[in-house]
């Protein structure tokens, strides 16, 4: 999986490319650990990632909770059809900001 972070002040955008699965979710987790300090708005761009398994959802939920505590926001953008189905089936479309 390729992860491309871009920081603009307190906004962090990460472009994900590939599959967010059990083997790759730790990569996203460690990038977030490194980059999330001071971030108020997190944007995760899924334009090139339409495969998100439960391991990926776990990282997203943990990050969502972390952002809430820090009084920040988290958005998922360019969500594809498969990932949208997963979010709807798990009720997470109502939790995350999905665009």
């Amino acid at each position, binding site marked *: 999986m390729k992860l491309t972070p871009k920081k603009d002040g307190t906004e962090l955008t990460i472009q994900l490319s590939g599959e967010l*699965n*059990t*083997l790759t979710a730790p990569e996203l987790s460690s990038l977030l650990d490194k980059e999330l300090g001071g971030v108020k708005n997190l944007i995760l761009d899924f334009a090139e990632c*339409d*495969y998100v*398994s*439960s*391991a990926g*959802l*776990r990282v997203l*939920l*943990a990050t*969502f*909770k972390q952002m*809430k505590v820090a009084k920040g926001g988290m958005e998922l953008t360019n969500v594809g*059809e*498969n990932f949208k*189905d*997963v979010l709807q*089936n*798990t*009720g*997470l479309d109502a*939790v*995350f900001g999905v665009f």
Partner: protein
Amino acid sequence: MAEESVLRIPARLEGMDLILSFVSFLLDSHGCSPQARTQLRMAVEELYVNVTLYAYPSGDGWAEIRGCVEDGIATFKLIDGGTPFNPLEKDDPDIMLSGEERGIGGLGIFMVKTMVDEVEYEYRDGCNQLTLRKQL
């Protein structure tokens, strides 16, 4: 009767790509839609990861995947020789809870149930056997 393909590997997390390549290879050779392919790969990922984490608490073991496509229906069977365990008996998570109220885990098996048409468990011949079926 469609020919069944079989792959048996050590039940380790590193083997996940191999298992998923097996799934893709079989589905691609039957002209499967990208959506059904992704859903079946994800369902198999969830079940295989469970095997690697929980089937053999005291050491190494094996996992086997069998697959075939017949009359437009894909069937995959995941087998291990570990501790008898039916993951399908686990309670479904409450998906109506807010983000703050939710635990971060427990979605994997629930997702499997939503992504395939049928999923069954049986303990047979000393093995856990999980069967997935999906119309392509």
